[in-house]
């Protein structure tokens, strides 16, 4: 299996652990992922609101580059990048005006996008391309007794992805299940993590983070597992602040789903970037006897 790979800014910065774990799993499962040469900003969801045509141009350039490299599917681990690229792809396909504008912008840079690419999330690739049974066979150290709250975030299936239910996605639940984890019923799985509101409107943002953390703990989760660098960042970085504000102990490790997947597949903590996490997961893992740490 061969994919084009678009990391986006966060996987090279705050989400470094995500990149490390995604690539490590790709390697283990025999998936070839070629980073797009000279990729640029995805046009981010915020940019869409400011200048849509600029955002389509930015996303379109990445698509054009990947297509020029001969790719058919581009894997995008960050949910925000996934949404931007997916949205640009759909709009270019469906709206002639958008296509015309984007074509013009790309032509100025000597590029052309034929619209042949599929934008994929690693979760989609694992569940639908590699398949759960192959993953199950590859599990070396099952995540026994680890209670996991699967948190999908708002952007993954809304509104463009077709690989899972938009109201009640379950593919990560199924994936965690074959990894041997104890999946906690977590009804807030697609609720907003507050995005960038934690910076601009902390009153609003931190309350949303509080609800997500508290509910996961209330349901007995040992860890929350995310598929988005921004969700991971929000849920992890503000735990002190939120605990103080609401006078509750809300500390809980927030892992990328690829990190727990890596542990189950027998990869080292180092290899899946576990040492980079701010909230220490090792005591939890030790207690649950999960993985080789």
């Amino acid at each position, binding site marked *: 299996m061969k994919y084009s790979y678009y990391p986006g800014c966060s996987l090279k910065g705050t989400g470094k652990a995500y990149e490390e774990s995604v690539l490590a799993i790709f390697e283990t499962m025999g998936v070839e992922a070629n980073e797009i040469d000279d990729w640029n900003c995805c046009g981010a969801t915020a940019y869409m609101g400011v200048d849509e045509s600029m955002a389509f141009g930015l996303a379109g350039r990445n698509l054009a580059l990947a297509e020029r490299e001969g790719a058919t599917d581009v894997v995008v681990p960050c949910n925000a990048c996934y949404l931007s690229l997916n949205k640009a792809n759909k709009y270019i396909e469906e709206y002639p005006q958008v296509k015309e504008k984007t074509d013009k912008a790309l032509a100025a840079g000597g590029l052309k996008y034929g619209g042949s690419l599929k934008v994929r999330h690693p979760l989609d690739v694992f569940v639908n391309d590699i398949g759960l049974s192959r993953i199950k066979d590859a599990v070396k150290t099952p995540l026994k007794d680890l209670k996991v709250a699967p948190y999908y975030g708002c952007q993954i299936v809304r509104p463009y992805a077709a690989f899972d239910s938009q*109201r*009640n996605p379950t593919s990560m639940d199924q994936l965690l299940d074959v990894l041997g984890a104890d999946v906690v*019923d977590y009804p*807030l799985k697609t609720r907003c993590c507050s995005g960038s509101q934690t910076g601009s409107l902390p009153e609003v943002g931190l309350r949303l983070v509080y*609800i997500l953390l508290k*509910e996961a703990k209330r349901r007995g989760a040992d860890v929350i597992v995310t598929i988005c660098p921004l969700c991971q960042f929000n849920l992890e970085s503000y735990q002190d602040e939120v605990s103080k504000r609401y006078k509750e102990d809300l500390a809980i490790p927030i892992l990328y789903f690829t990190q727990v997947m890596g542990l189950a597949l027998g990869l080292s903590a180092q290899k899946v970037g576990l040492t980079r996490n701010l909230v220490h997961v090792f005591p939890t893992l030790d207690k649950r006897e999960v993985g080789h740490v």
Partner: protein
Amino acid sequence: MSNRLTEPPTGADEPRIGVFVCHCGTNIASKVDVHDVCEYAGTLPGVAFSTEYKYMCSDPGQEFIAAAIKEHKLNRIVVSACSPLLHEDTFRNAVAKGGLNPYYFHMVNIREHGAWVHEDKASATAKSKDLVRAAVYRIVFHEALERKRVSVDPKVLVVGGGIAGIHAALTLAEAGKKVYLVEREPTIGGHMAQFDKTFPTLDCSACILTPKMSKVKSHPNITLWTYSEVAEVDGFVGNFKVKVKRKPRYIVEDACVGCMDCIDVCVFKEAKFEDEFNLGLSKRKPVYIPFPQATPQIVTIDPDTCIEVKTGKCKKTCVEICGDRNAIDFSQKEKIEEIEVGNIILATGFKTYDPARSPEYGYGRLENVYTGLEIERLINSSGPTGGHVVCRDGNKPKTVGIIHCVGSRDEKSNKWCSRVCCMYSLKLAHLIKEHTGAEVYNFYIDIRTPGKGYEEFYDRLQGEGVHFIRGRVSEIADWIVSPEEEGKLIIRVEDTLSGFVRRIPVDMAVLAVGLEPRPDAQEVRKMFNISCATEGWFLERHPKLAPVDTFTDGIFIAGGCQGPKDIPDTVAQAGSAAAQVMALIDKGYVELEPNTAYIDEKECSGCKSCIPLCPYTAISFDAGSLKAVINEALCKGCGTCVASCPSGSISQNLFEDAEIYSEIEGVLADV
């Protein structure tokens, strides 16, 4: 006429064509120069008389045609007016009244095809002339046709034993007709038997239904077959042959008296299996009676759960206690009954929406989320809790939220309004309040109460202090933001009147689920050769003027299988279907339209390619002559076989090649 490719038949009477052009008030006359068309028609070959009239379909208009035939010795008539769908019959009758065969007639539609679709008077007039000319060219070839008659068997089959089937069967039986009523469940009664009270009068559902059920059982004109299904339907209007599969219930129906001793002594000490009638809220044994007033009042042995049926290794305590009565018979096999009937009424009902398909409401995941039908059973004194409305932990709810439009009026599930949920939600709100004293919230997007006494019932409920919140509920959740919410179900909704998003904690949530076609509607449709609308409801012949007829003569529909409807409408429709059937029976025969296809046996090669194409299953293969045979009674004159026949051996009355070619020639003739 000599330059025509299609030469009119020689030797017959010289055609004397009469053309009658209608103004249709201003419908046609405002856009078509009727006088011009009429004068032009008079110049066409073979036309002996042409005239115009303001309302051709009126009584004087029809009289005018009849008189003109005699006065001008006309032998072919063209009426240029509106759609033949509306008035073809009217004018055929007028032609017959004038002493002509009614098929020496052709109708031209210059209203829908002319006046109503053109902006410009000149082109509308020119097109009308073309169409009239085509008809004049065609009608020369018309031949006298005869309507055939087939007799009608006075027996009737009613499929489905809900209130629709019961009412239709009783209406017919009371009128002296013999009826077979076939029901697949062990008892008749349908959904209505599951309700506690009916809206808006709040009278007890069973009290008004069970007398009718027992009347069905005891009526000398009704043969009741429960636990049975229609397996095969053959034939045509007036003469259907039907096979009914009677599933073994391992009980000799005539011997069982419903004493229920066998249920008491069954080797299963405790009831263990999901009780279908109570929607799984209670358990039953393998031998059971669905509910106390079940009709017939006899037990059924469920083959999926009975040890004796499954393994043959049971102690058979039931047989022992039944003793000399010998009502239990494990040797029973499936039986096929063959019957002949003249008409069929389908009253196969509906199913309720499965709210698990809308995961945001938590049905099946959160234990105190119920459907409306489940609450009906809880309220019913013969239901699983003996009439107590309680949560799964046995406690009375203090607050209850009723969510409207679950699986209705929603692009993601069903688009249509299910028509009964508003009213049954109001009814349940009243009954829940009466039984528990709880605070009741109704979450609605519209309240629709269009029925006699319905709006008044809504007013009454508002007076009773039930809360109404307008807004589609986004989620029923058990995640909490404050300690007061602990242990409650949280209904999240945007209150669109106040403009706020609200979280309302309740002890019990009731989903007012909508109605859907039954999952096997397509198979039933095929078996009875009728049509479904896109949503899967059985399609009536005309939504306003033939609401219980189908496109297949002799097959009628009533009740929930045609679309969501409440009990009064269902009963009215069932009565209507019965009346339609009686009209056919009492007439004794049906007349068949003669525009059917026919086969030239000499030419037919017996290739059978027409047989699977016929949508009305009217063509069969005669193994003796090795030719295809068309059943005129089933043929609807669609022409599919005519077009498909590779040897050109199939023709169709009123659509003969000469008629069609000449009509085309008429349209194209450059006069």
